[in-house]
């Protein structure tokens, strides 16, 4: 508790190597105090390792970590005002639930620990389990206890390592709201690791997408989704239709802010000039499935055949095969309009500006295939 700072969390050129393997590779970022920051990335990309370094459970091989002005890099975990909700819960099996939650408070000699711990437990709707032991609770309940145990300390930085993974949808949504409420009320800095993208997008102010120990892109959720900086981000966050195309306008010159590119099938597509990275002629034109409308309402049109339709409740997802074989994913909200049968010929359309454009030098499948360590 001594020597902790309060303020922005700053990682400077942080690298962590385990013997020959580099789990986290030269990460620098600043997380403003009181913001909700999310880390996304495939399994094994270094998310947990990054959190562990912030918590002090792991020493960076290179680099420094500051909270406010204080360099906490070599502070012991118990000297940092940082708490973690562990991916594996790590509840103390010999202590009952209330004592688990009160652990940090009592460690800091908080006289009011009883009331505070009970409150935190009530918050996660587990007030009635205070006297039980961890093994008597279901996985979801244990996860909520872990959450309460960390929250109750009101740390400067709260690290959440997939804190809601074991909860069912309803409960997860409700906990998300609680977390968000606490965060904005108390002004804690949250760093949240999750594999629920919707969770990251709705909750976080800023999201960092990690890949192989590095940060691929760091932005607010909307930018990340609508202007992914790489095919990896485009594919990892939501679904993307990537069409290979060549810029055909002379010198990439724009007409009314629009540039024409040509697909392999010799369809011309108009894209926003501002989206086109300068100096590149071979591009991926990326269109999100929900931007593709069935019908010819948009200016860019492609024809194809429906090969698959699946109902997901809110929406229906179609696969549409283009004449040259490429399959596009199309999502259509179930707002009452009729569903298309498989085999139907359809026109897909969208307007210029709804796309994003990436350099064709990048691998179109990055982030879409399985990526085992």
């Amino acid at each position, binding site marked *: 508790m001594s020597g902790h700072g309060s303020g922005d969390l700053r990682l*400077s*050129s942080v690298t962590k190597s385990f013997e020959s393997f580099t789990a986290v590779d030269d990460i620098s970022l600043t997380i403003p105090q009181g913001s909700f920051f999310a880390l996304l990335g495939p399994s094994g990309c270094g998310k947990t390792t990054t959190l562990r370094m912030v918590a002090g459970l792991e*020493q960076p091989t*290179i*680099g*420094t970590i500051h909270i406010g002005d204080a360099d906490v*890099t*070599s502070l012991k975990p118990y000297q940092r005002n940082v708490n973690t909700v562990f991916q594996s819960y790590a509840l103390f099996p010999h202590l009952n639930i209330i004592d688990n939650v009160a652990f940090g408070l009592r460690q800091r000699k908080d006289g009011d620990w009883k009331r505070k711990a009970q409150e935190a437990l009530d918050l996660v709707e587990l007030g009635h389990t205070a006297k039980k032991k961890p093994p008597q609770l279901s996985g979801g309940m244990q996860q909520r206890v872990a959450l309460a145990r960390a929250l109750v300390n009101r740390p400067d930085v709260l690290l959440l390592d997939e804190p809601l993974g074991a909860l069912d949808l309803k409960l997860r949504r409700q906990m998300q709201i609680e977390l968000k409420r606490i965060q904005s009320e108390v002004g804690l800095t949250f760093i949240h690791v999750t594999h629920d993208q919707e969770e990251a997008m709705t909750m976080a102010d800023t999201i960092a997408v990690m890949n192989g120990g590095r940060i691929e892109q760091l932005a607010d959720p909307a930018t990340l989704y609508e202007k992914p900086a790489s095919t990896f981000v485009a594919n990892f966050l939501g679904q993307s239709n990537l069409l290979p195309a060549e810029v055909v306008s002379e010198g990439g010159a724009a007409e009314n802010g629009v540039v024409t590119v040509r697909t392999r099938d010799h369809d011309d597509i108009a894209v926003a000039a501002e989206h086109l990275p300068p100096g590149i002629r071979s591009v991926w034109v990326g269109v999100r499935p929900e931007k593709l409308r069935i019908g010819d309402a948009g200016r860019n049109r492609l024809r194809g055949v429906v090969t698959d339709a699946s109902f997901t409740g809110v929406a229906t997802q179609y696969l549409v095969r283009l004449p040259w074989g490429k399959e596009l994913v199309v999502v259509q909200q179930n707002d009452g309009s009729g569903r298309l049968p498989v085999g139907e010929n359809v026109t897909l359309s969208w307007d210029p500006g709804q796309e994003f454009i990436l350099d064709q030098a990048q691998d179109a499948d990055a982030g879409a295939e399985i990526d085992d360590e």
Partner: protein
Amino acid sequence: MSDAAVAVPPPRRRVRRNWVPYALLAPGLLWLVVFFVVPTVSLVSQSLQTGDVFNGYTLTWNVQTYVDALGTYWPQLLRSLVYAGLATVFTLLLGYPLAWFIAHRSGRLKNVLLVLVIAPFFTSFLIRTLAWQTILGNGGLLETTMGALHLTWLLHGFESFLGLVNLGTGNQLLYTPFAVVAGLTYNFLPFMVLPLYANIERLDLRLVEAASDLYATPASAFRRVIWPLSLPGVVAGTLLTFIPATGDYINSVLLGSTQTVMIGQVIDSQFLRVLNYPLAAALSVALMALIITFVTVYVRRAGTEELV
């Protein structure tokens, strides 16, 4: 910034990692070094001396003692290993179901049963072993009970069977190798049951369900899942049983006969009666060396080095 970044050594952690284990070890190991290693070193030196108790000994590096000792007493040494081995197998056969029973089937009685396993120690083992004489002896409890149940034929049948497999004389239970092995088994059962229990209690029964879901009958679930997972407990238990049982001789003295002499008896007699200290020391050193070798190989083979 990157200059500053490079300069982040975690020196304090390194240092702590180095001295902590030694600090933890120090008091215990010091104790062992002073009160075990020093006497053991002098024991080894004793085994290499010549002379006698009345005129004194000199260190002559006489290895011949070892040759003599092993040449003369290898049968007793071998017998000790065999009896201890048999007892270990029996403690395992009996201890495993008991440990399982206590761990998974005894409900609230668990702690009481655990104490019942260890509580006999509080009644001196000498009295308990003498009680076995009362039970196994002529006209003893067993014979009387079997007689009352008209099962004397069964008892005699068993005695004859023991005679056939060289574990008995064919006409009695007491004072036979069978009685010695049974006594060893009895005396060392708690040493087997406790570590087994500790292991089995932690065993994840869901794995047994998974095996059964994958077509394993109870027998093959045991062989392919439960047994391999209990190995650390089995190894600890067999070591705690086998090692002391090899050097034990009270069971042989009280329940055995002149045909069941174990190496501990020989060492005892050489030490206390013949006063041939070098021979006794040589036999002790040989026994210890044998056991350590055996344990090392065994633990390696069982692949549980880290667990024991």
